[in-house]
């Protein structure tokens, strides 16, 4: 077991390394010249060349990559003369478009996305699993059909529509909640909950629909198994049969999906963040893409990918806890 964790972690590091190369090459192959974007109206070839040197963009790609990796571990220095500045470890690069170190931007954006994702995750897992189990128990009856109908619609509606609809009616027209904004939960917990509630709901609707369906399918699958019949036959109360036997056995795919979905969201919930003006990873990343802000795109992609890779590891480890049959 311990050996397995070590092996997986080692593999993870190799993957991260591969990922960093792929990301770096992918984005730096963008046809736009990043140096040309460093000055606007008064741009002359001389200025572009000067900035190219100042930002290290004149180096071959592999040198740029090594510099970048070096920056993450020991920091790096940009510029020359009186305009030198240090980018401290872990330095993910310097965004010329924003005039800011990428690490600072990421550090600011991650908590926003983190709270958005965790809140929505809790909400959709609660709603999804509960209604999924309920629907499975009532299979074929009207309760089941109603739930399935609702989830299908919820699942099919575009996220941007749901978000905008909620925003305009709940906040703007009916004034039920304050306008979404980001407050730190440690400083102002009440404002934090009030303003995040709507984004959580908007984001959770889609996922809740999906998890309801997933849970229901899993439950139906396991409820048909022989050992459930055995459990019932030996007189166990239905509650225990459902909770301990059926649900637990069907949990594996739910955990897999949940882990990856959460990790995916931590990398940025683009549309939700856009509609509710939350300054999270998704906005940061898409904004960077729109502005061809290469250091920021590269870093945001890396961070998002790291979340997914870690989630993969955690999910695999969780398997062992859930399913004793999983041998390593």
């Amino acid at each position: 077991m311990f050996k397995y964790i070590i092996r997986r972690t080692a593999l993870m590091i190799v993957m991260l390394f591969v990922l960093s190369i792929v990301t770096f090459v992918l984005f730096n192959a963008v046809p736009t010249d990043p140096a040309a974007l460093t000055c606007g109206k008064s741009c002359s070839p001389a200025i572009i060349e000067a900035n190219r040197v100042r930002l290290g963009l004149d180096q071959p790609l592999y040198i740029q990559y090594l510099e970048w990796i070096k920056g993450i571990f020991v920091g790096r220095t940009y510029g020359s003369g009186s305009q030198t500045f240090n980018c401290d470890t872990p330095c993910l690069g310097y965004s010329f478009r924003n005039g800011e170190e990428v690490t600072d931007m990421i550090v600011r954006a991650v908590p926003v996305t983190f709270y958005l994702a965790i809140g929505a995750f809790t909400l959709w897992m609660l709603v999804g699993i509960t209604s999924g189990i309920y629907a499975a128990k009532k299979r074929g009856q009207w309760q089941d059909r109603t739930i399935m109908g609702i989830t299908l619609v919820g699942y099919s509606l575009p996220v941007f529509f749901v978000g905008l609809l909620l925003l305009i009616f709940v906040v703007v027209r009916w004034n039920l909640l304050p306008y979404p904004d980001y407050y730190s939960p440690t400083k102002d917990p009440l404002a934090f909950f009030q303003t995040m509630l709507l984004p959580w709901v908007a984001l959770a609707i889609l996922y809740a629909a999906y998890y309801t369906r997933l849970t229901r399918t899993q439950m139906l699958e396991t409820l048909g198994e022989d050992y459930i019949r055995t459990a019932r036959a030996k007189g166990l109360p239905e509650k225990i049969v459902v909770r301990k036997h059926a649900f637990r056995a069907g949990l594996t795919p739910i955990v897999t999906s949940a882990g990856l979905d959460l990790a995916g969201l931590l990398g940025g919930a683009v549309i939700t963040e856009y509609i509710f003006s939350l300054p999270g990873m998704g906005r940061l990343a898409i904004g960077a893409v729109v502005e061809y802000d290469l250091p920021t795109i590269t870093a945001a992609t890396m961070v998002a990918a790291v979340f997914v890779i870690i989630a993969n590891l955690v999910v695999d480890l969780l398997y062992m806890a859930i399913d004793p049959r999983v041998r390593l």
Partner: protein
Amino acid sequence: MTNLTGTADNTVAEVMPADGQAIVGRSLREIAWMRLRRDRVAMISLSVLLFIIFIAAFGPLISKLIGVDPYSFDSSAISDNGGLPNGKWGGVSLAHPLGVEPLTGRDVLARLLYGSRVSLLIAGSATLITVTMGTIIGIVAGNSRGKLDSFLSRFMDITIAFPLLLVIIAMSPVIEQRLQAIGVPAGNPSRVTTLILVLSVFGWPYLARIVRGQVLSLREREFVEAAISIGSNNRRIVFKELLPNLWAPILVYTTIAMPGLIGAEATLAFLGISVVPPTPTWGSMLEESVGYFTVDPFYFFVPLTMLLAAVLSFNLLGDALRDALDPKSGRT
């Protein structure tokens, strides 16, 4: 749902591995079809889908028959101040059966018909490529095991690890330029190809994982072991033993990938990177109309209804297919 296509890698568990042989005389396919035909929801969904495919295929012809055009402006159909359609219901009239677009007066019905073509073309082609790639790589990985398998699996892990939306947006211009360099005409030919490519290139690992899992478990089954023991070659095992048992999950995956990709196109349109205007798609129509939904709701509900009809039908059909292909479902 970690991916844009709204599908998960656990479909393995949702679909039943076919048993190979079923009840007397009827093949699984026949049974499934029988069940499907008895399922009213499935039949309605199927008809809706066929209808949508029909109008998409004959969109230009239908537009011509009705006498509407998706690209011509009609200044007379919109107001001078603000450009909202004249008249109620988004400017519905004999000349414009589903109203007109604000600001331009372009015909909504014609745009919807033309838009269906592009949306279905993108989603359909991407699904086809995704399914083909996913199946092939999944089988290769599952069937080869060992080094090749672990290499392919890690490859899938890495591909899945990328934030899909981000990569698509960032990579699209690069891919488009490369396409144009090899002679694909600029504008929509290269843009649509790009969209199809990015959506499939990052979409295949999900199905590949499912297929690999299925193959791994199938290989433990007696009939495959039997085939191996009598010395069947690899090709025979893949085509005669494995593939026939894989088409159920693949079919189900296809029906859920389709609506996911239709939605993905809409999301990309929302972010402003779908097809080159003025060509319409469902996604771009939705994106343009969402801002009007308080002042001209009809304009917004037209593409929304179309998108919902398609997505719902595919999902419902997928559910029905799953039930129909599930050998256990008869027992309950």
